[in-house]
Structure formats: C-alpha cells, structure tokens
C-alpha cells in the first residue's frame, strides 16, 4: 500500500469525523472504488483505517488501546474475505479467458462448416441460421453440380451448446464423403445414421432434400425432423411434407423412406428447425398457421429476403427475448416454368 493512499484515506476520514455530511460519505465511496481497482484487500483497508485513526487522534486519549486491539482482531477476521475476493477475481479472469476461447471455437466452427449456396438455373435458395448461444447446434449443408442436382440438408443436434456444435462436423464430413448432389436422400440418411449411432448418446434430427432441375422433382427424407412445408403458388396453400423417419443415432440399422413431390413455377419448399416452431409468443408457442401467414405475407420476396424477413418477424413476435433454441430457416423456390 502506498503512502499516498494512506494520506488520502486519513484526510477523508478526518473530514467525515468532523462533518458527517452526505458529500463526505460520497467522497469515501468513490475512494473505496479506487482501492478495489488497486487490489487493496479488505484487511489492508482496516490496517490503513487503524493507522489513520492513530494519526488523527495523536496526542489524545480517545483512541484507546482496546480499540486498537479490536481493530487488529478485525484485520485477522477479514483475511478470509480478502481470499474470497481474490478467488472471485481469478474466476472472473478465467471466465473471460473461456469466453475468448469459445469465441475462437465458434469461429473455427464457422470456417470448418462453411458451405456455399449452389447456383443453378431455375431454382433460387435463401437461408438464415441463428444460434441461441455462441455455438450453433443447427446446420445447413448444400451441394450442387451446377447442372442438374442440388442437395440441401438441415440438421439439428439434440441438445445445445458446445457438444452439439462439435457433432456437426460429423454430419458435414459424412455428406462430403458421399459427395454427390445426385445421391438419394434416404441413402444419405442411412449412412449418416450409422456414423452418428456409433457416438455416445448423440442424436440428430435431419431433413435432406434433393432437387432435380430436369424433372422438377424434390425428393426428400426426414430423420425425425420438423416437417418441411411446401407452398403451392397455384392455389396459395401450404402442405406439410410428411415423412416418418427416426432421429439419427437411435438405432444402428434404420432405413428411412424418401418421397418426391413435383414442383411448379413459384412453388417453395421451406425447411426449418424447431427453433422456429418452438418460438414462444407471450405464454404459448408459435402456431403453424401464424407461421404460414407470415410466409404468405413475404412470399413475393426473393428467398434470401424471405428467410431474413421471417426471422425478423419471429424476433418481433417473441418480443426480442433471447432465442430459446437455435433457429434455422431455408427456402427453395422454383423460378422457371
């Protein structure tokens, strides 16, 4: 402790002992903040206090030996508090370090899982994926051959946070290894299921769809995923793309069925995760009809803007509360006749 601190403390204490004003008290409070910043421990403060009193009452009998002993006793007493404070500071520092590490991990995740929206004549694609926490447990995978096929996978790891995020690279590597946009969705799911099943209690819900530009067919397979929506431009109606499939990772040998739908101009396939359907509005969940109304309202936007508009609408509906779950929304729209 420096003499400067001691001098200032003595001055402030002296003033307060003379005049017990709000202002003097306020000056003392400000000074205590500086002591905290300078890492002065509680026991040191008491020691400064004792020395200051001795100085203020020098030559008088008012500051008795009994009082001095009592302050020594209190100093000992405060040592535990000082230790607790130091521990608290170390924890804060560790927390900062961990936050920083997480930030780095999230960036690595972004780079590792990077996937680009394929461009192909006759189909436009837009998407948004927003994590509830630092790392995203939702994942969108794209592949395309620029001529005939586009593959889109949307996966949601059961659970949240870091373990979920790490699991994602498994999905990407699996699909990369299969490596063909023309691949059958149910085959892709079966292979992924075998990979995921080998891990210890990791489960993934996934929707995988393949669009064939030549046939205008969308073939899809769902592994326990939230049903995708099909918007029929002709009659302005939405249909749920039903499909009974099991979460990836539950049983070793599963064969999930695939189905196909024919798309016409203006039709859209909308794939999402439960972050959309489980979004809380006041004290309830977002209704499917509310969601389709929102999509209908923005249906004439290009898919990317549509996806972003839906996210903003959901943000508004949930009154900008933090997302409870990672949220992903993908739109595929057939543009040509």
């Amino acid at each position, binding site marked *: 402790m420096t003499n400067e601190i001691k001098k200032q403390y003595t001055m402030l204490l002296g003033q307060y002992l003379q005049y017990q004003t709000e202002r003097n008290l306020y000056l003392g409070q400000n000074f205590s903040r500086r002591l905290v910043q300078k890492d002065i421990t509680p026991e040191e403060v008491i020691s400064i206090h004792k020395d200051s009193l001795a100085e203020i009452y020098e030559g008088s009998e008012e500051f008795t030996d009994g009082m001095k002993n009592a302050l020594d006793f209190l100093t000992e007493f405060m040592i535990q508090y000082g230790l607790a404070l130091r521990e608290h500071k170390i924890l804060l520092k560790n927390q900062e370090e961990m936050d920083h590490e997480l930030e780095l991990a999230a960036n690595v995740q972004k780079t590792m899982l990077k996937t680009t929206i394929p461009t192909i004549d006759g189909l436009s694609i837009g998407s948004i994926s927003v994590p509830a926490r630092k790392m995203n447990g939702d994942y969108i995978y794209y592949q395309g051959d620029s001529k005939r096929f586009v593959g889109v996978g949307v996966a*949601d790891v*059961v*659970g*949240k*946070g870091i373990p979920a995020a790490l699991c994602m690279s498994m999905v990407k590597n699996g699909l990369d290894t299969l490596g063909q946009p023309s691949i059958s969705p149910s085959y892709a799911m079966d292979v992924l299921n075998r990979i995921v099943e080998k891990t210890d*209690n990791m*489960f993934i*819900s996934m929707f995988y769809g393949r669009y064939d530009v030549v046939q205008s067919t969308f073939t899809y397979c769902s*592994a*326990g*995923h*939230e*049903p995708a929506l099909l918007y029929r431009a002709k009659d302005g109606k939405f249909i749920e793309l039903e499909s*009974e*499939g*099991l*979460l990836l990772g*539950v*049983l070793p040998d599963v064969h999930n069925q695939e189905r196909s739908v024919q798309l016409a101009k203006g039709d859209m396939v909308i794939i999402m995760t*439960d972050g959309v359907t*489980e979004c809380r509005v006041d004290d*309830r*969940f977002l209704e499917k009809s509310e969601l389709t109304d929102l999509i209908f309202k923005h249906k004439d936007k290009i898919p990317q803007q549509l996806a972003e508009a839906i996210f903003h609408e959901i943000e508004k509906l949930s009154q900008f509360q933090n997302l*409870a*779950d990672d949220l992903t929304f993908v739109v595929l729209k057939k543009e040509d006749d």
Partner: protein
Amino acid sequence: MLSMVSGEVDAFTAPSLREELLAVDIQEDMLVELNLSEVSYMDSTGLGVIVAFYKNVTANKGRLVLVGLSQRLQRLFDITGLSGVIHIEKEGAVNDHERI
C-alpha cells in the same frame, strides 16, 4: 419400477434428470415405466435424455414404457420417429389443455 418426471425438462433441468436416470440399476426383464404426465414442457435436450435412457434400458435387456404424454409431447415423439421405437402407453393420456 415406476418413476414420475415432473416440471420443465429443458437444457437447464435435463442434466439432473440424466443423473437420476443413470442411477437406475437396470436388470434383465425389468419393466421401467416413466410417467410424464406432470411434464409441462420438454425441449430437445430433455428428449435426448429420454432416448439415452431408452438405449441404456434396452442395452441391459430391460423394457421402457412411457405413460401420460400430453398431445404436444406425443407430437414431439411422433415427429422424431421415437413413438415407433419406444413403447408409449396411450391409455390414460392426459388431455392437453396446456402446452407441454
């Protein structure tokens, strides 16, 4: 063996449910019944705990039955395909006047 799960099963409460279920000593041919009628909400983390428990029970040659699922919870098990794998007793299903 009968067990009752109640309250919200989400990312915050699921770890303690996992602990409790892990502590269950599963023996061959044992029938484990989980009553979920008091579960007001379950998210995917909670679902993961139930699936992990199911895998543990079957690996030890026991049987798991879920009872008392609300409509919303039933839908969650239907969408994820789990209702085709885990035995769910539909009788005595609670009316879904509230969200799960």
